[in-house]
Structures are given as structure tokens and as C-alpha cells.
């Protein structure tokens, strides 16, 4: 199999396989998690504006009072790499083209050079959060194989994509194939690792906001 064939496989059967597992995994895991249900709260609710699951879904994206200065690296690094990932994934024209092909929806992209810059910043942020994970006692204490593995899963698509665009290390075609394959690996692993927080974080925030919102606490 030559490079173009590998690329074509990655764009064809590979993508098919990865998306199949991804869709399968996401739906299965979501049902598995939320199918457990919860008991209704029989206590009399306290109605306070702003105290609800929906509010918390959004509000929790902002650091609670005092937290930013205790962990600036976690917050800054986290913001930069999450926003950066979102920009790179959803605003790079070739990626939009993929989404258009998959879902039939499209939107304007950003200039490729800007995406290139954001990719570098995002990778830098990921390296910073990795160093933070290694050096901070709490993070290191909590870290399992899954944490290192998912870091790599997130970093590789950025790195291979960036290397491909810049024709570094390997021929573009091969690097592009590796880039797509790394994304496919990410898709396959996402439902079964902590990366699934991309879906459940919203559910978790909603539950937290709802349970505490019932008490009139806008968390």
C-alpha cells in the first residue's frame, strides 16, 4: 500500500470504521449512563432566577470566584486548548468541507494561516497542561494511563495536521494520511475514555445545576 492508497483508505474505509465506532460508542454510552435515571426530588423547591441546569451548563464555563488565581495554568491552558481545538476543528476550511460532506452543513472558515497560528498556540497550551500534569502533585497523583493516553490522542491530530501542512518530517500525503488516521483513533477512543466528557460534561453540569438549583443555589 502506497501513501496515496493509505490516505484514500483513511478517507474511505478508515473513516467509515472510525465513524461507525464513534457513533455506536456515543449512543451506547449515553444510553448506558443516562439510562440509570434518578429519583425525583420530593422536597419543596426554592425558585431562584439563574438557578437551573441550563444556567449551569453555561455558567460553569467561567471560573468560580477566586479559582482562577489558584490555578491559572489549568484555566488558561484549558481555555486555550479547548477553544483552540474548537477553532482548528470547526473553522479550518478542509475540515468544514468534511463536515459538509458528512452532515450537509457548512459555514465560513478562517484564513488557513490564522488556523495555522492557532494550531501552534493550541499545541503549546497542550504541552503546558502536560507539564502542569507532570509537575503538580495533585494532577500527577490523579493521573492514570488514560490521562497520558488521551493527551496523546488529542495532541497527535494537531501535530500531524500541522506537520502535514508544513511538509515536515514526512511527505505530505503520508502525513495527511497519518493525520486522518490519528483523528480516527481519537474518534474511536472518545466514547470509552475520559474524552467522553465532551458529551457528558453537559449532562453533569445540568444535573449539578438542577440538583442545586432545586435548592435555589445558582451553582
Amino acid at each position: 500500500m502506497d501513501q496515496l492508497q493509505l490516505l484514500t483508505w483513511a478517507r474511505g474505509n478508515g473513516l467509515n470504521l472510525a465513524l461507525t465506532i464513534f457513533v455506536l460508542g456515543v449512543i451506547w454510552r449515553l444510553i448506558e449512563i443516562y439510562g440509570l435515571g434518578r429519583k425525583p426530588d420530593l422536597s419543596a423547591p426554592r425558585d431562584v432566577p439563574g438557578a437551573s441546569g441550563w444556567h449551569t451548563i453555561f455558567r460553569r464555563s467561567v471560573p468560580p470566584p477566586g479559582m482562577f488565581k489558584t490555578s491559572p495554568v489549568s484555566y488558561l491552558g484549558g481555555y486555550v486548548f479547548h477553544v483552540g481545538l474548537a477553532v482548528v476543528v470547526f473553522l479550518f476550511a478542509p475540515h468544514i468541507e468534511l463536515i459538509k460532506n458528512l452532515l450537509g452543513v457548512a459555514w465560513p472558515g478562517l484564513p488557513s494561516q490564522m488556523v495555522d497560528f492557532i494550531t501552534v498556540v493550541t499545541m503549546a497550551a497542550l504541552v503546558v497542561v502536560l507539564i502542569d500534569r507532570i509537575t503538580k502533585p495533585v494532577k500527577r497523583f490523579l493521573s492514570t494511563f488514560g490521562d497520558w493516553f488521551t493527551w496523546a490522542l488529542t495532541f497527535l491530530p494537531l501535530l500531524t495536521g500541522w506537520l502535514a501542512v508544513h511538509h515536515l518530517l514526512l511527505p505530505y500525503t503520508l502525513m495527511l494520511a497519518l493525520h486522518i488516521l490519528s483523528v480516527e483513533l481519537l474518534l474511536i477512543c472518545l466514547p470509552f475514555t475520559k474524552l467522553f466528557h465532551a458529551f457528558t460534561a453537559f449532562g453533569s453540569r445540568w444535573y449539578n445545576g438542577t440538583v442545586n438549583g432545586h435548592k435555589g443555589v445558582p451553582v
Partner: protein
Amino acid sequence: MKNSTNLATGVVASLQAAGISRRDFLGFCATLAAAYSLPATAAKTIAAALEKAARPSVIWMSFQECTGCSEALTRSHTPTIESLILETISLDYHHTLQAASGEAAEKAREQAMHDNYGKYLLVVDGSIPLGNAGFSTIAGVSNYDMLMETAKGAAAVIAVGTCATYGGLPAAQPNPTGAVGVNQLIKDKPVVNVPGCPPIPVVITGVLAHFLTFGKLPELDALGRPKVFYGESIHDRCYRRPFYDQGKFAKTFDDAGARDGWCLFELGCKGPVTNNACATTKWNGGVSFPIQSGHGCIGCSEPNFWDAGGFYKALSAPAQPLKVGAGVTAAAAAVGVAVTFLNRGKKSAAKAAHETTSLDDLEK
């Protein structure tokens, strides 16, 4: 064209006979020097070498092909220097071009092989079918047998066109004839791949000129291609590249973006994964190349380009219609519901087995 003889006629003389000035010839040499990354003074060296070069014997064999490669080389709108290089070689066998036919033609080939054993160049266009010897024969001889026999005495083999290099169209899925390229069969001597459908004429002549000038083949990359012509992707040298960098893409072939010359990536241009010199040397004497004409690169010089997901599909788009559909969703839901059913059962069982805690139950 005539059945060439082995007479050593000066290149310049023959060029002049064809109405091409020495100035034009030197210009051609300068182009080659630049292509090979040689200093400007090398143009003179090339010119001198070409002037003195003996006319080497060349055997050109066409297998499963469309003659497009030969056409590209010879049927230029106006006679070009590329086509005239052919005048400088002793093209001893080319069954499309040669006057002789039948036994006489085959005899010419055998004669050339015999006379120049170990020194002649073998140029091949077209792929070789391995599925059945009868799929493609010349004078009753299978392509495979003829290639192997002729290659034996060749100094080097130049595979011209994507069919000869990688199998090309005949090898496209499902490859009914079992077509392969030359370098999959010839392992014991240098094989230069000059892919393209067709290859850029100046690249073909450039390889020949290099051989004539320096007596050896140009430096090749991992795919056997001359690095000088295939070292960079079309995307990298494309004049529309700034639009790619700015994120300006034509969405259809006739929209405002297309008219303004925006990048054709989203229309399926394969420039990024295609290594060739189209964007720099261009075609027809530097007039244009596909992207300049408003059509994306189809990647014709890359292996398996026929099967690379469609000419009009962006590189980042799925190469084939995806099959993730209702079936997968239903299966996923089934797994989820099954697990949930088990989970609920487990939870209920735990609840049913719950013995109300009394104070004693706090102690082990």
C-alpha cells in the same frame, strides 16, 4: 517520422534543420540547468555536451496505454524543443511512430538491441498485464515477455506515464488485467519513473537530456522519480496558494470565487498530494496548466490516482460514501438499551435485597 539510422549527426545541425535557432537551444539548456539546480554556467556545459553527444539508441515500447504520452510529446501545437530532442536520439523502435511494420519493425528492435547491447535506453509507456498473457501482445509476444527480453540489454529503463510507472488506468479498481508498472517487474537495473497522465513533455526530454549530458540518470526519489521535477507538490508552487492561505475557496466552477481565481481545494483539487512540476514548467511551452485553466489538479502523476476518492471531492472529504447510517444508530441504541436493561435489573436487585439498616448493622 523515419526509421532512424545510427549516424552521428550534430544536435545543433538537426535543430537548425528544423528551424530552431541556437539562441532557442541555449534557452532550453538554461531551463534544464535551472531544473536540475545547477549554476547558470552549466547551461553552456549542457549545450556543449548535447552538441557533442552521440545519438544513443532508444527503444520505445508501448503496452497497455492510450498513446497519450507519445501524443503529448510529439503533437504539440507548434514544434517544440522537447519534441525535437527526439530528433537527436536514434529512436530505433516505436511502433506508433516508426514507418516499418510487422516483421521489419520487430527486426529493427532486435537489431538495435544487438548493436547497442548494454547501452541502449528503454522507454516504456503503458502498463503490463499479469493476469493473462493474451490480454496485450505485440507481434504475438506478450507485453511481459517483450519487456523482460528488451530490458535485459538496456542501460536503463525510463517508465513514461502513470500506466508504466504505477499501472495507471488499467490498474484502477478492480484492475481486470492485473496491470502493473515497470518497476514492479524490473529490479536489476535503474528504472526512472516519469509519471503523469500524460507526463509533462519537458520532463521526459529533461530526463533524456540529463542522460545525454552527464551519461547517467538524474537523482531519483523513493518512488523512482527525478527529484528535480517531482520534489515539490503542485500545491506548494501553485499561483493560487495565497487564496488557500487566506481561506478563499471557489465553491463551484462558475462562482465569483472561481472567476477571481480562488483556490480550488474544495472543488477537489489534488494539488496538495500531487508531486509534479506542472505549476512551474507548465504545459504547451509554459502557456498554462490545469489549475490555471480553472480545473483542480486530479493528481494524475500519483500512484492510484484513479482510486483516490474522486476528482471533485475535497481531499478532506470522505473518499467514499459513508455507510454509518440507521443500522449503526439502531445497533448502538440496542447496545445501550441492553446495558441499561441489565443495569436497571442490577439496581433493582440491589434494592430488593436491601435490608433496612438497624443500629446493629453499623458494626462489622
